[in-house]
């Protein structure tokens, strides 16, 4: 019974982190048609910056996460202007730039902290009893942050002027700019948002599990899976796909070995994509 509850808790938390990271990626992908292969690295660096601020500089947890997010957001604006904007419609050069970025970020982390794994200390100590099991407050907080942010993103995209402008650009770039929407400014904001979401997810994962210079690679794969299964332009699709992936990742390793469950998950994903390449909830992308 505790196994079930623990698995459900695990599933929810993993899903929320996957969804946050995937939303960040989707911002760039839907709006700017940029496939940011460095998204995982940004997620990773967000986590490490959070760690540095908390452990090395003694910031309060909440302040640290906020600061890490702002730092990464600023970095995102810089990246958008210099690394991605020049190559907006050129997939080849974008990929090159992303790989360069990943190498730079991973090497930097490697030099500064080495590759020993570390974890961000918990937000809050203690646990409470939910039925027969103990659930740490930590996990509750992590999950809540995820849900709150998710709600904020949905509200932002659907209710604010800025969000609607982003939707416009996603659907028709040329048309939007003819309407007077400042594409560059909005792209910068979108990039900042996308990177922020990744950074938060990185910090959360850093507390929930651990940090490692290669956690970005793993997360990138999960994000790509979620975004491709969801299809372009659908936030609801990302939530559902994120939940499905979170469930698979929480449940399967209990039954099978770690490696086998990874293989099964990918096999399922490949089959699903062959059945419906454009994703199950969104529209098809012409590239």
């Amino acid at each position: 019974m505790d196994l079930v509850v623990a698995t459900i808790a695990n599933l929810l938390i993993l899903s929320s982190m996957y969804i946050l990271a995937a939303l960040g990626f989707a911002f760039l992908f839907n709006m700017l048609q940029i496939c940011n292969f460095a998204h995982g690295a940004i997620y990773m660096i967000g986590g490490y910056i959070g760690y540095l601020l908390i452990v090395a500089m003694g910031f309060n947890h909440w302040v640290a996460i906020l600061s890490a997010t702002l730092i990464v957001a600023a970095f995102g604006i810089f990246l958008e202007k210099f690394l991605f904007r020049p190559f907006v419609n050129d997939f080849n050069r974008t990929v090159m730039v992303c790989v360069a970025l990943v190498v730079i970020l991973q090497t930097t982390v490697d030099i500064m902290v080495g590759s020993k794994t570390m974890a961000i200390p918990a937000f809050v100590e203690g646990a409470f009893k939910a039925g027969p099991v103990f659930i740490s407050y930590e996990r509750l907080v992590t999950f809540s942050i995820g849900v709150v942010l998710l709600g904020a993103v949905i509200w932002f995209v659907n209710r604010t002027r800025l969000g609607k402008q982003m939707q416009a650009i996603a659907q028709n770039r040329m048309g939007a700019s003819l309407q007077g929407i400042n594409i560059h400014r909005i792209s910068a904001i979108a990039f900042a948002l996308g990177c922020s979401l990744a950074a938060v997810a990185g910090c959360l994962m850093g507390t929930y599990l651990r940090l490692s210079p290669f956690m970005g690679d793993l997360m990138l794969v999960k994000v790509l899976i979620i975004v491709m299964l969801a299809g372009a332009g659908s936030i609801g699709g990302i939530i559902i796909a994120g939940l499905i992936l979170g469930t698979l990742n929480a449940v399967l390793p209990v039954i099978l070995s770690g490696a086998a469950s990874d293989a099964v998950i990918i096999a399922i994903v490949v089959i699903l994509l062959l059945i419906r390449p454009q994703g199950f909830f969104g529209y098809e992308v012409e590239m």
Partner: protein
Amino acid sequence: MSGDPFSTDGLSDPATAKRNRMNKFMKPMMAAGVVAVIALLPVLLESIYLLHILIQTFIYIIAAVSLRTITISGQFPLAHGAFMGIGAYLAGMASKWLGWPPYLTLPAAALGTMGIGMLIGLPFARLRSLYYAMGSLFFGIGVVYIIRAGGSLTGGYSGLTGIQAMFGGSKLAYYYLFLGLTVASILALYRLEFSRIGNNLKAIAQSHQVASSVGINEIWYRILAVGVGCFFAGLAGACYAHYNTVLSPASFNFMATLWLVMYVLIGGINSFAGPIVGTIILILVPEFSRELKEYSPYLSAALLLIVAYLMPKGLVSLPGVVISRYLERKKGEKSTDVSGN
């Protein structure tokens, strides 16, 4: 008349014809010259370490050029590293469990990888651009996971050991064998690309509608491209297996594929020599900057950024760009003299 419908020999002016004839003669001569120099390198350099680097370079050149061959059909596969892995593990397992000698495992691994590639290619061939790329990416990742989950058969996470070495481990022998295989692979892929087969692949890439309307079976040709690419990826993997005698699944993961893609892009995806140049540069530069130690990856990243910003057509375009800038400047000087400005 040369009989080649795509050339303009014999129909153009004498100057162009002369240039074409020279190209036809000069290019193979230069290539042969380069190969001769490379063949003499071990004698000239006497460094086992350099031999080791060059051997790796040969293996990755085969993989990079064959990756590019697939891309001329308009498909952008992101699983080439995994196919190298399939070839490596096929050869390794045949060597370890079946006791097959290398002259059997190498062709068997290449053919096996080709077969698997074409089989997988069948459902994937219907996918367009982005979805093909992503699908192949996930497939490649899946291959690594399957290898990892292979228990004692594949050695799982920790890898496969005990693969037969060749020539008693003599690096010199490996060097010449792999040099030969690389040259043969390059020639084979070159012939494919510049024959009507390659032409049809390029046609499909430009407009599959038009290609179909003249009778070209798009799916069949796309699978052919993948099959050829996978054959050589498998060959490269098998060479890797017998050279290193141990395999680890992490060597063939998504990052491995991504680096192969980098070798192709940095050299120039639109040129046959591109992947060769790219592989050499991206392997040799970090090796020769060993003094930088842990900072050396920054150099590779810098290379990627420089090429992305300054040389979008890849490093192969560098001589062309330099020469045309030089000629332009000369012409500029001349015309200012004449006009007196």
